[in-house]
């Protein structure tokens, strides 16, 4: 088949034959001689101090080789990685098995290795732990005034606070506005939920002191670097193989405790160890996506031109910072201009710890949250002004001749031409038989389209960079001003 151009060409995928005949190898399909199976015992409560863990019954299960807790698994050279460590972040420390405190339902407290999957699971269920229960902190707004701290070093549960844009200029824009509109938006948590859950197979070759790891991962190289760091191995002695991956959606862009536990026990027992997450534990222990409460204000003039945008994002980080956790809502703040020419922007981000599963990268990773809040406030403003929502957008698009365009959040967009895309989106509903509910359909199409531009964040002399300032004091607004803003 001669392909003159790849654009529009029909190309059959070369990987499909093995996938449609059952010949593909996913992580759980890796079969090694003498392999052991891992299983995790997890906390059933959201927050508590571990008083004792009784592993004696689990150890009696036929086929069980060993049961480990944080006390017996041995020291690690480093905690689980947190890839960002932004200046001023009140950092968390997490080890593969909970030390002293559990901070979420599903927090691993013990690790079993056994001759079969069934024995490992049987034993994990027989592990009994005694907890001194502590109050759960599950509401991102309530967490800031809660008397319970998830982390000692963050007594108000605030992980960090950053600002982007220009506060004074934005307030000036609002002062001179023809109209202002406000919204409170809950961008709810979600489960990434790939068809293939997480899993890992670790094999230790004692002779050459070489660790081979099969993992369903989106980041084989980072996984290798971090496993080496946590296990105190030279990086060249760790080989990570990623076979077929049954979906990731961001949640496999991480380094998890179970990866480390499988490696550590493979080394301790000199036998391969496999761990495959089940669906239920995936819901607890694999990262979640989104999890924001957004306060948004838009100022417009009498001609329907945007004068300024103010946002306050409360981001729920969950109980621990995973490898990208803090980065995700910061990406939201950088994208606050959406595809609009907004002359003044001020964005405040308050990132909060709660006793829930950590949030991290999920499909777009922070940026769709920004697009969502921008497009929602655009619709609200159009309604308020009595302007057609499409027309309101046309008036405020970044004009093609303005590229490369520096947003007021410090990002450079290299290119863009949004109006033809809007026209195309508006044409869809009629061709799909949606004429009767045209405006509703069109709005949906636009929201979808709204995230389809391609910004770059390369540094440029003229662009303002975000200010990575963490405030030392208590976060943000008083309860009364928060209530005043939550009218919608």
């Amino acid at each position, binding site marked *: 088949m001669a392909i003159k151009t790849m654009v529009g060409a029909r190309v*059959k*995928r070369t*990987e*499909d*034959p093995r*996938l*449609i*005949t*059952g*010949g*593909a*190898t*996913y992580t*759980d*399909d890796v*079969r090694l001689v003498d392999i052991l199976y891992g299983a995790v015992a997890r906390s059933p409560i959201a927050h508590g101090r571990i008083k004792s863990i009784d592993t004696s019954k689990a150890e009696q299960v036929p086929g069980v080789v060993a049961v480990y807790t944080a006390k017996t698994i041995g020291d690690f050279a480093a905690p689980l990685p947190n890839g960002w460590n932004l200046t001023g972040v009140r950092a968390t420390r997490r080890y593969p098995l909970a030390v002293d405190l559990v901070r979420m339902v599903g927090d691993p407290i013990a690790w079993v290795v056994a001759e079969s*999957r*069934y024995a490992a699971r049987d034993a994990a269920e027989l592990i009994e732990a005694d907890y001194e229960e502590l109050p759960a902190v599950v509401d991102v707004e309530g967490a800031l005034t809660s008397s319970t701290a998830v982390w000692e070093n963050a007594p108000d549960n605030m992980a960090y606070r950053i600002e982007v844009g220009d506060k004074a200029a934005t307030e000036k824009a609002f002062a001179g506005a023809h109209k202002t509109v406000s919204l409170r938006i809950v961008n709810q948590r979600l489960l990434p*939920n*790939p*068809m*293939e*859950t997480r899993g890992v197979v670790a094999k230790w070759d004692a002779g050459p002191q070489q660790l081979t790891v099969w993992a369903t991962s989106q980041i084989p190289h980072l996984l290798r670097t971090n496993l080496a760091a946590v296990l105190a191995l030279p990086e060249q002695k760790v080989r990570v193989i990623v076979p*077929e*991956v*049954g*979906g990731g*959606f961001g949640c496999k862009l991480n380094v998890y405790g179970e990866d480390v536990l499988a490696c550590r026990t493979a080394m301790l027992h000199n036998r391969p160890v496999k761990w*495959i997450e*089940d*669906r*239920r534990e995936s819901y607890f222990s694999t990262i979640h996506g989104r999890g924001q409460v957004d306060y948004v204000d838009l100022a417009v003039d009498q001609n329907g031109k945007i004068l300024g945008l103010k946002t306050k994002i409360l981001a729920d980080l969950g109980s621990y910072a995973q490898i990208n956790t803090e980065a995700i809502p910061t990406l939201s703040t950088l994208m606050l201009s959406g595809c609009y020419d907004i002359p003044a922007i001020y964005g405040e981000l308050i990132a909060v710890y709660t006793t829930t599963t950590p949030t991290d990268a999920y499909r777009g990773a922070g940026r769709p949250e920004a697009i969502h809040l921008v497009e929602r406030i655009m619709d609200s403003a159009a309604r308020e002004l009595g302007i057609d929502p499409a027309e309101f957008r046309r008036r405020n698009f970044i004009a093609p001749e303005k590229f490369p365009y520096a947003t007021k959040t410090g990002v450079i967009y290299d290119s863009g031409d949004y109006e033809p895309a809007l026209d195309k989106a508006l044409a869809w509903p009629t061709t799909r038989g949606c004429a009767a509910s045209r405006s509703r359909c069109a709005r949906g199409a636009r929201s979808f389209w709204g995230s389809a531009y391609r910004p770059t964040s390369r540094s440029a002399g003229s662009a303002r960079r975000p200010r990575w300032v963490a405030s030392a004091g208590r976060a943000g607004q008083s309860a009364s001003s928060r209530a005043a803003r939550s009218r919608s």
Partner: protein
Amino acid sequence: MKVAVTVNGKKYEHDVEPRMLLVHYLRDTLGLTGTHIGCDTSQCGACTVVVNGEVVKSCTIFAVQANGASIMTIEGLARGEKLHPIQAGFWEEHGLQCGFCTPGMILSAWGLLKNNPNPTEDQIRHGIDGNICRCTGYQHIVNAIKWAAKNGKAEDYSVEGDTSAQVVESRSPYTARTADQAGGR
């Protein structure tokens, strides 16, 4: 407990724990890892296989319940190098991305087309509603099954030990209805 089965035309006999799931028997004991586990709770259909001509989620039954049965897994669908029309349809119509749900999706489609060779789009969507895909949004899977319906023959749906026709009467109304629609095949 003893379990003796024929899988993809090959006979096997093993002593297994009574609680061992059929999917673990196929994957871990027989090494047929084309059958996948997505949810452990019979929701997702990644573990779908054909037991005596009938489509079954292999995480819902014990290996010993399949004693004496003739089983077809995804590994047994192609005839040598020649892909089954459903497999060919999935390749032609981009019916997969990550491929994890695909073996189960293909075998559910097999059960659908066996009983209803020319399904409508609604019948296709109903026919695969026990199988979850996270990548495609389903449209290309539906297209793949349409392709297979157009390019398949009756003999593509005959399988050793098929007793499904005999038990149709005692099945749910939906199963009976689709069997009625089987018509000429």
